[in-house]
């Protein structure tokens, strides 16, 4: 059986090669993805979709970004999160007194539309963000969390003036821009690296504006983006494929790969098959099992990095009986971590002992749960439910919810957890729901009682941002506190840390917060799994970034 399996894909690929045109020349690659961008406007309706973000980061350019760091054991180039370098901004200065940043912009940067980058583009980008004219105001949001003056909730009021750019961002000359903060906030530069504040090409954008749509949302959502990135959109069929061609004028040099085609192949197994057939050069979003079966296959390579992806169990403090700390702890000891790593991730994961990604600045190891059913039973008895007696009353609460679209990845994991928890007496059932519904219940209704989540990746690379995002009370600035966790210690310490200009002090406070979160088991961290992608062996220059989108610019064919 095994032997046959090894040989037949080869046969298949031979047959395919005969049937279909040979895939790619040295200058072109085909990437298989779950989806292609639905829009290239980060304030548009599709900004929350990773596929759309991938399109944005490859065609648009930030002011600043992380420099290259080390190369990991898979040969993947990692960023150095400890510092930030200039991209469209050449350099900058910060005046602590006036909380003002002065950016010196790079000259001679030419975008896909032929325009040259200058201060007007920066002003346009922020003005557009402040107009909150799009469906989902991400630009405003990032500016807001990094405390840029004027980017507050008043933009949503009726006063049109509040939506216009004031003196917080001013053009000093064509290549100098000043941005003012309302308070000290260490998130400022990290936020500028994120996809939601990439720079627009004003000239091209305005050329496609209409009276009904002065900020060119429709065009950016339907036709192309306009910026100064490494690639330009040359063909785009939504739900099908998008083709990028290299921006030969890219300021970091002409990309090695001249044409990148991203094809939508919704089923992961199909992506795997085509990659194995040699037609495509890169596939992402496969299941751990598929990566595992591809590892070591001739001509293919799987690259991975323990980046910022993790899986955790979500227990809602507002839902009985998860308000019982002993029960939370019992569950923590009833999860078979090693089995999940082995059978769910095929070894491509490590137990997670923290509450923010371990690669982020400010991370601290704070937990050390083990799989110990006896201890779990003892804790369950302490919690008042010996052998699980009395938990049947909470049948609905114990529906372990997960995203149905991720069945092939999460299925084995939830099944393992379900079996293990039932083994100690917790009456778990499974409840796969569509992603949209999951998102609604997690973000808006916040009524998910018991869930498994593997999709939370703080977009700003900072432990403190992760904390503010997930653990701070909503009324204290918490943004996505899905488990309704509320701790005065966390809230107060973060309030101080957020505006603390001294990074050392800030780090100490952030560590203290993590300790507190861990002791409350706000989340039950399970594993950090490797972000993986499979590719042709000849496709080199693999790199990883916090947004988990590949940068085509880094790639080249050997």
């Amino acid at each position: 059986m095994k032997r046959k399996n090894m040989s037949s894909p080869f046969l298949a690929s031979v047959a395919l090669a005969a049937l279909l045109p040979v895939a790619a020349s040295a200058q072109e690659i085909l990437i298989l993805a779950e989806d292609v961008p639905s829009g290239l406007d980060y304030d548009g309706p599709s900004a929350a979709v990773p596929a759309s973000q991938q399109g944005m980061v490859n065609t648009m350019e930030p002011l600043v970004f992380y420099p290259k760091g080390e190369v990991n054991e898979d040969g993947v180039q990692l960023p150095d999160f400890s510092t930030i370098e200039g991209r469209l901004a050449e350099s900058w200065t910060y005046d602590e007194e006036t909380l003002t940043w002065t950016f010196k912009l790079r000259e001679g940067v030419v975008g896909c539309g032929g325009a040259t980058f200058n201060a007007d583009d920066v002003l346009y980008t922020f003005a557009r963000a402040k107009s909150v004219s799009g469906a989902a105001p991400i630009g405003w949001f990032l500016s807001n969390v990094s405390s840029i003056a004027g980017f507050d909730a008043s933009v949503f009021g009726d006063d049109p003036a509040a939506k216009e750019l004031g003196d917080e961002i001013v053009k000093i000359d064509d290549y100098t821009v000043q941005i003012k903060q309302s308070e000290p906030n260490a998130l400022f530069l990290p936020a500028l690296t994120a996809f939601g504040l990439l720079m627009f090409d004003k000239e091209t954008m305005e050329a496609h504006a209409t009276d009904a749509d002065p900020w060119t949302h429709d065009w950016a959502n339907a036709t192309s983006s306009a910026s100064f990135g490494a690639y330009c959109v040359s063909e785009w069929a939504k739900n099908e494929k998008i083709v990028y061609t290299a921006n030969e004028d890219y300021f970091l040099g002409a990309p090695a790969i001249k044409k990148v085609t991203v094809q939508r192949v919704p089923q992961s197994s199909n992506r795997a098959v085509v990659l194995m057939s040699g037609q495509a050069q890169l596939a992402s979003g496969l299941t751990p099992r598929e990566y595992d079966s591809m590892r070591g296959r001739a001509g293919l390579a799987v690259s991975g990095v323990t980046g910022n992806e993790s899986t955790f169990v979500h227990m809602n403090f507002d839902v009985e009986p998860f308000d019982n700390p002993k029960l939370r702890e019992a569950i923590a000891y009833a999860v078979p971590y090693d089995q999940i790593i082995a059978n769910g991730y095929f070894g491509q994961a490590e137990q997670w002992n923290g509450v923010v990604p371990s690669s982020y600045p400010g991370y601290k190891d704070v937990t050390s749960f083990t799989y110990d059913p006896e201890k779990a039973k003892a804790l369950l008895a302490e919690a008042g439910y010996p052998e699980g007696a009395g938990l049947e009353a909470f049948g609905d609460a114990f529906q372990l919810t997960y995203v149905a679209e991720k069945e092939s990845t999460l299925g084995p994991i939830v099944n393992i957890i379900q079996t293990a928890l039932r083994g100690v007496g917790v009456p778990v059932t499974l409840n796969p729901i569509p992603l949209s519904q999951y998102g609604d219940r997690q973000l808006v209704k916040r009524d998910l009682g018991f869930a498994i989540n593997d999709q939370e990746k703080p977009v700003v690379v900072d432990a403190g941002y992760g904390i503010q995002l997930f653990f701070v009370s909503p009324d204290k600035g918490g943004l996505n506190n899905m488990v309704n966790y509320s701790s005065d210690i966390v809230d107060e310490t973060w309030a101080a840390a957020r505006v603390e200009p001294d990074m050392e002090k800030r780090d100490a406070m952030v560590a203290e917060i993590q300790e507190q979160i861990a002791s409350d088991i706000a989340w039950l961290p399970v594993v950090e799994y490797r972000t993986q992608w499979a590719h042709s062996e000849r496709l080199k220059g693999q790199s990883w970034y916090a947004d988990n989108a590949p940068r085509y610019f880094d790639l080249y064919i050997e």
Partner: protein
Amino acid sequence: MNEFADTTFAAPKRRFNWLFAIGVTIVAGVTLLALIGPYIGPYDPTLTTPRVSVPPPSLSEIPGLLFGSFSNTLEHPPHWMGTDSSGYDVFSRVIAAPRTDLTIALAANFVSLGIGAVLGLLAGYFRNWGTELLMRVSDVLQSFPVFISAMVLVALAGRSMGNIVLALALVYTPIYIRLTRAEVLQKKVAGYVEAARAMGTPEIAIAFRHVLPNSMTPALIQSSVTIGFAILLTSGLSFVGAGVRPPTPEWGLSISTGANQIILGEWWPSVFPGIAISITVFGFAVLGNALEERYE
């Protein structure tokens, strides 16, 4: 003789008796599994084992495993059909699934049969603007794409057997309305109806006591086919993610979770439940046909 010579009055009545026997056997077997299936498998169909993606034993291994399982010398009971990517024993799930599939199919069938028969009776017996409206509504229902309605329902109220039954009933009720109505239209002009009227029987009593029982035959025959198709639809719904919740043992769900692996050569989690569906639905189709030949 030429082939037309003996075709004229060809109703081959009870000619497929052996086929009828096969149908009855399959249906009886599935019904039996629905009763005891979840308890007789070597593993709990809803609990994982630590062994994932184990292929089924090869033919040469089977005798040894059989001997081993009878003499209790094995480490663990054999996985006759392998295990899936979560570590479930495929065999235990395949034989436990009829409980789910058949329950849904029977419930959907009888809910729609009950509603469809009564509405069909009313629509056929009392023809007025109200029943005309009823028929138009039923037309609209019938043109409603089943998978979309099921998915919307599931999104409305979550994945549960009840919702699947409801979605299927929505599909089948118009069929039963039509069937019953057509029959009622024929039967309501029958002599015994007029006779009952001539002796002063109230209309509603005529409708329910005379017309309905005599109009049920086509619908009852259709039932067998419907039950089979309900199993197909249930599994199809699982396949698009609108079916029962895991880890409920259900054939379509097993196929669907195995579908991702089939392309990597891991065929067993999908193939075995597929065979089970194939045989079961065939059994119901055969039985339905036999009934049709007998009573029409």
